[in-house]
Structures are given as structure tokens and as C-alpha cells.
């Protein structure tokens, strides 16, 4: 039996890597992928606690998170296609329409 702490610490590490990727990466698609990484890290914590408590609520929440992530991916990639079409770049530093 693997202790729950291990899963939670792995989840925190993956979430931290996702945060770092979100700040460091400059390609808008990769930034979007780091959001998915963070969502996955949270899902792992949900399932680990669900198993530790012997209740299934956490696993149901994971399914809802996956549904929300799927819709988010569909809308977000639509926005990315729009940005690429209008500004001919995927670099977030060149998407500076609102910058003074």
C-alpha cells in the first residue's frame, strides 16, 4: 500500500512544474498545455484522497474536471487559431494589442 502522502507530494511537484512552465514558456500552445498539466496534478490529489477516505466523491469530481478541461481545450484552441490567424504569431510577447 502506497501512503497517501506520496501521491499528494507528487501532485504538488507536478503542479509546481505546471506553474513554472506557465510562467517560463513563450509559445501560447505550450502555455495552454501547462494548464492541462496543473489540472492533471489536481486530479491525482483528488483520486488519492478519494482512495484514502474510502469514498468515491473525489473520483466523480475528477470526471467533472475532465469535462471542464475538454470544453476549455476546445474553446481555448479556437482562440489560439484566431490569434494565429490575426497576428501571424504564436509567441505571447508579440500579442501585445493591449500594451501601452
Amino acid at each position, binding site marked *: 500500500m502506497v501512503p497517501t502522502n506520496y501521491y499528494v507530494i507528487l501532485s504538488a511537484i507536478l503542479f*509546481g512544474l505546471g506553474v513554472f512552465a506557465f510562467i*517560463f514558456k513563450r509559445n501560447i*500552445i505550450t502555455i495552454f498545455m501547462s494548464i492541462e498539466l496543473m489540472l492533471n496534478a489536481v486530479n491525482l490529489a483528488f483520486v488519492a484522497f478519494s482512495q484514502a477516505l474510502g469514498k468515491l466523491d473525489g*473520483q466523480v469530481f475528477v470526471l467533472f474536471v475532465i469535462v471542464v478541461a475538454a470544453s476549455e481545450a476546445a474553446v481555448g*484552441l479556437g482562440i489560439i487559431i484566431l490569434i494565429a490567424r490575426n497576428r501571424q504569431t504564436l509567441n505571447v510577447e508579440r500579442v501585445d494589442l493591449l500594451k501601452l
Partner: protein
Amino acid sequence: MTAALVVFFVLAALAVIGAVSLILQKHPIHSALSLIVVMVALAGLYLLLGAEFVAAVQIIVYGGAIMVLFVFVIMLLNAGVEEHTSISKMAGAPGLLLAVALAGFVAATIAKSTESVQAAPQTGEIASTLGISNMIFKDFVYPFELTSFLILVAVLGATVLAQREKS
């Protein structure tokens, strides 16, 4: 060291290596493939936790649908190697500091507070797929119905966003 622990460490190492590779790769398609490795490793961890249904959904929806969408968009937009300016390279150091601090704080806090969780009796074999379907269609039926509305709105939004404007 039990077999479960060995499997856990192998899968955890795979997930962390995939996540680090996502950061280090320069080309978005390589980052996408690294993310798929992370997702498959997480599916293995879900199996280890006894959540078979979540593991299957993870593979089908995340590894299948969402990542194919990502790869499809990367190919469609012909995304190239990402370029870093000197300012964005400087953002790496404080970003790393922030991420390490955040992960350390979360891990330390939760690891301390899960002692009560550890003491709780573990039911072990719960019929997870049957239990999940019971919960979704009984306790969580209204949120479940709302997700269909959410997906409808997302489909409409994506269609409207991606269509070409009539001139």
C-alpha cells in the same frame, strides 16, 4: 519495499520526467508528446489507486481526445521552435523560485495534515465503476446534466470563434 511502491516510484518518475521534458523541449510538438507521457503515467497511478474507470477516462479523453486536438492544432498552425527574448529568460529565475516555493509549501502543508487521513480505515476493494455511476446518476445528477449544457456552450463557442468572417 513492496511491489506497489516500486510501481508507484517508476510511474511517478515517468510523470516528473515528462513534466520536466515539457518545459525543456523547444518545439511545441515535443512538449505535447511529453505531456502524453505524463498523462499515461497518471493513468497508471489511477489504476494503482484502484480507480479503473478514472484511468480509462484519463486515457480516452485526455490522452486520446484532448491531446489529439492539441497535436492537430500544432500541425494546423505549423508552429515552429519557440523564441525567447532576454527578458523572458530573466523571468525563468523568479518563476522557478515561485514554483519551488509553491510546490514545497503545498506538499509540506498537505503532508502534515494527512496524518488523520492516513489513520482512516481504507476500504480497499470498493466496486468503483458501479459506485461512480450510482453517484453520478443519483447524488450528482444535476451537475451532470449541467455539464452537457457546458459542452454545448463550448462547442458553439469554438465553432463561432474558429469560423472565418464573411467579408
